[in-house]
């Protein structure tokens, strides 16, 4: 595509993806209930839409792919050939191919992939079905010849139809009393042409002979006998040669012939229309007449459209010829010959059986040059220029009506919005109203018997560029900042007032006035606060999408994996409409995929094994989401064999993850939690254990990186549940604001365990690391002032504060100069050069306008890693019962 239209392409991608997002889960449902008409219809429509869009874009392979699947769906829908397991496999593959094509075209701007193998498979499915449907002809044809024969058949059909049409015209021409030689000759020549093309020599010679013998140049009209002979001979020759009857159908083409019966009414309407406007065509003047030519043009124009619509292609063709001739003579009137037009007129009369009569009636009519037809046409679709105004005023009325009903302004806005929505008014930039409800999985999974995936819920959504939302969020953040500083001003004002009041610095009247103002300000400040909070919340919600976007991919995945490992697994999804920040959702995809794969691969037993244990053969894997405060909890729960406690302990101790003496004191859940330990995943024969080891440490790390937590619950023999607790959003965190020197820093509250005051005598040293003892635990102390330079903080403070934080597996105390308070902060990404600097996750602007850096705890605490190793040794010594406390060892 030379003119690769980016915007159009984006629309196309969205269209295809949306359809696939519906199609794929529907296909899964369909696999469970292959005959379900409504799902079949939906699937059909998805492919139909993709086909339409692909054809529009000129992506023929994608279009054909969609077309082939659409065919399969249609056959299944019509009950001709139900979809087999094999069909499903191929169609699923095809879905993947659509996605490959999107990538391919994105990169190359055209289709470069070779899908012939897939096409063959799809065709084989279709043919396989036609065999079932009892089409022995198709079966016997050898593969290669089949296509050719098909083509020939098509040609033959075209030929027959054309001959029939020409013959019918000839017959109806011959029905008229006066038949011009030229009309017949031109029809015969047409017949020669098509016959010659098909190579029917016998027929060809008959036609040629008839033309010469019966239509000599000397005559201008044919007599009855000649006409009869022509008709008879051609009919006979056609039967000999082609083996089919040529019938005198009262229509123009064969295909119309079939329709003519049911279209009788329409046909009459057409004739009436012809009677109305066709007069100029009958009144061919001997000498050229400008007015006549124009009237003809008008008449032809209108007749052509109707004929087009009626599919009277021959009529259209003749009218077009007339039009052309007219154009010719209009450009040079000297060339006008009435005879030319009379010939065409004769041809026209011959096309439809009703026309001779009409033309006869024209003979009695006076031709008024003032083009009378114009006024007579009833269903004449003229646009009344006023009609547009009518619509406008109708819309206005509509709005006013609504106002009346709802009594005021709100009515107006709601209707206006409504109109805006429906018109997809995209004038204000790239707001694009997408109409597909974005919820891919409404309640469908809960009641799979009845529902198809896209329910009839017609939730309207607006698709907005994420960047815009981000800008909006930034603006909101500014607003939050302004609000905070306003609050500070208010406090200052209040203080000033108390001073004035106490010191009696102002007269009472003015003092009262000041108090009133102050009251107003503080009222407004709190109102502002409420609105800003709502606004902030609202904008945050825009960034959120239902988790169905994330869950949507899993049914297919579970299907594929379970087929591969020969297990029978049903995936039950609930809470798919729970909203979650889009960015977080993206981060969640991989970890969740991992967990689910593990559950199917290792958690759920084979059908035989399940049977042995008295469980239903079909395993159930449930995936659910729900919101709990500022968190979304996602659970992946299977009814498989559960975690094997002993195996985990064995593996963990062999890896040195737990000291042997500690084993007995470990709780069940602590043991289970071990599967997330770093290194555990490196165990080779994981599936010998409960199989839950593969890369789970990575999963945990990823979840924790977005501020979430992972938990596992398991009962041996009953199943395993993994719980993910994910913050609703990444963009706003509740932060503990601390001071390091003059610099404000933000520590995400979710990571803060406690804060306390310490003095330098509480600090010990080990191998260069500072440590403190807290609640019988020894923790590393990280002085932020020593990590981040340039804060102006003194490093040798006698007394300062410690913030005990947990980042993943690691715990540490951060030394800060002061605690400021808690506040929700909007995270702004740092500019690139700062991104290279580990330790900061972003920045935010505080109420007083100053900038605070948000700590990336993972990176900060990492610095204490060396200590962890030491602590391990200390714990071991403690455990060995040396009788010495950790502190003593360290001193």
């Amino acid at each position, binding site marked *: 595509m030379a003119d690769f239209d980016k915007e*159009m392409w984006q*629309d*196309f991608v*969205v*269209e295809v993806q*949306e359809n696939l997002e519906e199609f794929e889960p529907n296909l899964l449902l369909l696999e469970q209930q292959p005959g379900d008409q409504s799902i079949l*219809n*939906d699937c*059909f*429509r998805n492919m*139909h*839409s993709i*086909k*339409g*869009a692909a*054809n*529009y874009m000129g992506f023929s392979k994608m279009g054909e792919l969609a077309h082939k699947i659409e065919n399969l769906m249609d056959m299944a829908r019509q009950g001709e050939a139900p979809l087999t397991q094999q069909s499903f496999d191929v169609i699923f593959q095809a879905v993947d191919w659509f996605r490959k094509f999107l990538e391919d075209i994105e990169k190359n701007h055209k289709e470069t992939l070779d899908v012939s193998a897939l096409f063959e498979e799809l065709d084989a499915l279709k043919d396989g079905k036609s065999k079932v449907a009892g089409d022995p002809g198709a079966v016997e044809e050898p593969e290669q010849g089949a296509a050719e024969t098909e083509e020939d058949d098509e040609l033959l059909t075209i030929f027959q139809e054309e001959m029939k049409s020409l013959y019918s015209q000839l017959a109806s021409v011959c029905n008229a009393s006066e038949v011009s030689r030229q009309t017949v000759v031109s029809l015969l020549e047409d017949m020669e042409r098509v016959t010659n093309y098909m190579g029917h020599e016998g027929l060809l010679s008959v036609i040629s002979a008839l033309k010469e013998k019966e239509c000599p140049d000397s005559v201008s009209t044919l007599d009855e006998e000649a006409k009869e002979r022509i008709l008879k001979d051609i009919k006979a020759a056609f039967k000999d040669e082609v083996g089919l009857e040529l019938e005198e159908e009262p229509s123009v083409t064969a295909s119309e012939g079939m*329709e003519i019966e*049911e*279209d009788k009414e*329409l046909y009459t309407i057409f004739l009436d229309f012809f009677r109305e406007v066709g007069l100029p065509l009958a009144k061919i003047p001997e000498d050229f007449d400008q007015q006549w030519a124009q009237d003809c043009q*008008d008449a032809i*124009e*209108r007749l*052509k*459209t109707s004929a*087009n*619509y*009626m*599919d009277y292609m021959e009529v259209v063709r003749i009218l077009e010829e007339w039009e052309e001739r007219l154009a010719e003579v209009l450009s040079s009137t000297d060339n006008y010959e009435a005879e030319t037009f009379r010939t065409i007129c004769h041809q026209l009369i011959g096309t439809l059986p009703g026309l001779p009569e009409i033309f006869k009636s024209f003979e009695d009519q006076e031709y008024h040059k003032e083009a009378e037809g*114009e006024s007579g*046409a009833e*269903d*004449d*679709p*003229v*646009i009344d220029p006023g*009609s*547009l105004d*009518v*619509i406008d005023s*109708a*819309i206005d009325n*509509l709005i006013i009506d609504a106002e009346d009903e709802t009594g005021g302004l709100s009515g107006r806005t709601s209707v206006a919005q409504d*109109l805006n929505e*429906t*018109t*997809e008014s995209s004038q204000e930039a790239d707001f*694009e109203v*997408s*109409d*597909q409800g974005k919820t891919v999985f409404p309640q469908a999974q809960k009641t799979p018997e009845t529902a198809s995936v*896209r329910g*009839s819920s*017609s939730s309207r959504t607006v698709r907005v560029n994420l960047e815009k939302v981000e800008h909006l969020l930034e603006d909101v953040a500014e607003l939050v900042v302004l609000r905070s500083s306003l609050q500070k001003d208010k406090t200052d004002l209040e203080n000033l007032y108390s001073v004035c009041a106490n010191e009696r610095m102002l007269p009472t009247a003015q003092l009262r006035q000041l108090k009133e103002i102050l009251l107003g300000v503080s009222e407004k400040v709190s109102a502002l606060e409420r609105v800003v909070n709502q606004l902030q919340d609202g904008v945050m919600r825009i960034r959120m999408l239902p988790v169905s976007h994330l869950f949507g991919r899993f049914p297919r995945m579970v299907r594929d994996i379970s087929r591969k490992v020969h297990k029978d697994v049903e995936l039950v999804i609930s809470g798919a409409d729970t909203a979650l920040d889009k960015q977080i959702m993206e981060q969640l995809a991989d970890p969740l995929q991992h967990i689910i794969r593990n559950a199917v691969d290792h958690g759920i037993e084979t059908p035989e094994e399940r049977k042995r244990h008295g469980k239903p053969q079909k395993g159930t894997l449930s995936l659910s989401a729900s919101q709990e405060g500022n968190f979304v909890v996602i659970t992946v729960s299977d009814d498989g064999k559960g975690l094997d406690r002993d195996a985990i302990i064995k593996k963990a101790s062999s890896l040195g993850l737990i000291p042997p003496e500690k084993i007995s004191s470990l709780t069940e859940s602590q043991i289970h939690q071990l599967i997330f330990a770093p290194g555990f995943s490196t165990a080779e024969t994981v599936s010998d254990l409960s199989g839950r080891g593969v890369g789970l440490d990575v999963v945990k790390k990823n979840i924790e990186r977005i501020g979430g937590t992972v938990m596992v619950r398991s009962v041996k023999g009953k199943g395993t549940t993994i719980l993910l607790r994910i913050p609703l959003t990444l963009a706003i965190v509740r932060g503990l604001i601390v001071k390091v020197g003059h610099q404000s820093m933000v520590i995400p509250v979710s990571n803060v365990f406690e804060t306390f005051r310490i003095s330098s005598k509480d600090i010990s040293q080990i191998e260069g690391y500072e440590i403190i003892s807290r609640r019988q635990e020894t923790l590393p102390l990280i002085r932020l002032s020593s990590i981040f330079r340039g804060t102006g903080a003194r490093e040798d403070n006698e007394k300062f504060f410690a913030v005990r934080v947990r980042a993943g597996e690691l715990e540490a105390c951060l030394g800060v100069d002061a605690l400021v308070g808690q506040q929700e902060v909007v995270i702004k990404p740092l500019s690139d050069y700062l991104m290279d600097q580990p330790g900061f996750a972003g920045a935010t602007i505080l109420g007083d306008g100053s900038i605070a850096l948000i700590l990336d705890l993972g990176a900060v605490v990492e610095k204490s890693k060396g200590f962890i190793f030491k602590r391990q040794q200390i714990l071991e010594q403690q455990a060995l019962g040396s009788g010495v406390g950790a502190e003593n060892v360290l001193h």
Partner: protein
Amino acid sequence: MLKILVVDDSSFMRKRLKGLLKEAGHDVVATARDGKEGFELYRKLRPDLVIMDVTMRGVDGIQCARMIKEEDPEARILFMSLVKDPNVISEAKNLGSLGFIEKKDHHRLFDIMDKEIMQG
């Protein structure tokens, strides 16, 4: 300039059609993604022309056209679909529509519109 209602279940086609029509100086007063919506919008807006898809969820294009014609026999409806089923096409014509064009033949749209509606 015509006031046009586009009824099509594909957002892609709606957008394209809207673009084409706008470029040609028409006013797409509304778009609908299924027959039900199409009918409602027709009633509300009374456009000069409806460009109608056939395959749609729920109320399809044929049903929608029938409803519109019942409501307003003068309604001008132009079908635009990939459907090749002759039954569907003749049905569409029986409903008194202006025509039935294939989606990829969208240029014909203007031929028909020009001839059928713009002139008279």
